[in-house]
């Protein structure tokens, strides 16, 4: 939790227990240079809204980076993507976020 004012998403995520899966459970279906993320998606709701800041737009590489290990498994991204370009299933059994309170 060090280095973050306590109201940031990073600090909030720092409170959580995760068991990081070896593989991502989130896939950008089309991550090619012709992907809708590059030109057509202006708002990038996945980047703006995801409550765990899983998605980040990397301007240099012109692609969405996915920090799947931050995911708190709400599922909103699938519906948020205006181009239906996010495939977010559950992490494999036993992996992912573990809520102590829930």
């Amino acid at each position, binding site marked *: 939790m060090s280095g973050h004012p*306590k*109201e940031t*998403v990073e600090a*909030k*995520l720092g*409170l*959580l227990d995760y068991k990081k899966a070896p593989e991502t459970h989130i896939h950008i279906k089309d991550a090619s240079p012709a992907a809708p993320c590059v030109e057509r998606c202006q*708002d990038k*709701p996945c980047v*703006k*809204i*995801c*409550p*765990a*800041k899983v998605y980040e737009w990397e301007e240099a590489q012109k692609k969405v980076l996915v920090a799947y290990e931050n995911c*708190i498994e*709400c*599922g*909103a991204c*699938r*519906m*948020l993507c205006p181009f*239906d370009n996010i495939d977010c*299933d*559950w*992490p*494999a*059994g*036993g992996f992912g976020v573990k*809520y*102590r*309170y*829930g």
Partner: protein
Amino acid sequence: MERPIVEQRAVLATEDSFVSVACRSRKFLEGVPNAFTILRTPFDRWYAKKAEEAGAELYAGVTVRGVVKDGERIVGVKTSEGDELSASVVLACDGVNSMLAQKAGLRPELKPSEVALGAKEVLELPAEKIEDRFALEKGEGAVMELLGSTSLGMLGYAFLYTNKDSLALGVGCKLSDYQKKGLRPSEHLEALKKHPAVRKLIEGSKTVEYSSHLIPEGGLHSMPPLARDGFLVAGDAAQMVNAAFREGSNLAMTAGRLAGETVAEAKAKNDFSRAALSTYEEKLRACYLMPDLEEVQDLEAAIEAVPDFLEFYPRLACDLARLRFTVDGQPKREHMKAAWAMLRERGLLRMARELWPLRKAL
């Protein structure tokens, strides 16, 4: 179980004022208490244990990846480990995202307008402080919902619940509204913490957990077909949430029980076809569940048809109430005139029209 609820409070809020309506009654606690606060992790463990005691077998730590089909019939599930489990009936209770209902072809992906996105924090606070701040007897609990400026122009509400030695503070608004506004729910939650109706109640507490969850709020309009051959859906997976009365857990538990009874009857007849399983829907209609969802099915659309609904009416309530309690040397008659002027400005007929759909939520 955290606390049995003795008081339920609704707060109508503007940025700097609020009017609250609270109902506190010892009657809520008589016999089996009317409602409890719970924390899902310990509650789910307890509830699963109850199921095990009743004879269920529990496989934890396994993710179900899809359904196994034999023609049109669902005959089991596939796990993330690659195993296949066979079943006479698969009952999908996998929550709002219900990948199972989707993979079984019962419904398409949900739309952002059919779900609310909620963000919540668990705030640690000693039990005595909670009881002092909410004026509670030892061990008893209170819940409050906030409507108005706290939803920042979006459709939704905020809540503050008392647990044993923590508070649950959260926001929930339509996902499409967050999308339009470009607001992250964590920021919304931070704004809520500063509201005068909340700030002093949570002061000095320590955030111990942050979480986010979708809530299916499409109601009956978004409910998928509930049965197919060898398959049933219950709970959030079937959109069984009554947002107007913020009920969901009770609906899910009722539906789970009725689905279980349906499967037991099907097993007795050795018929797991859709037709045999359709008695599930009849059972849901015969209890409170479907009738309640029918009552409130058009409420959200009616509120959304008045774009400033959650801004205007809480402000009106605050303005009228403040006028009622203001001592300023003016004759009360002048206050009354000012109050009527406020109401006439909106138009009495218009207000009657706008508020009429709310009768379903009373």
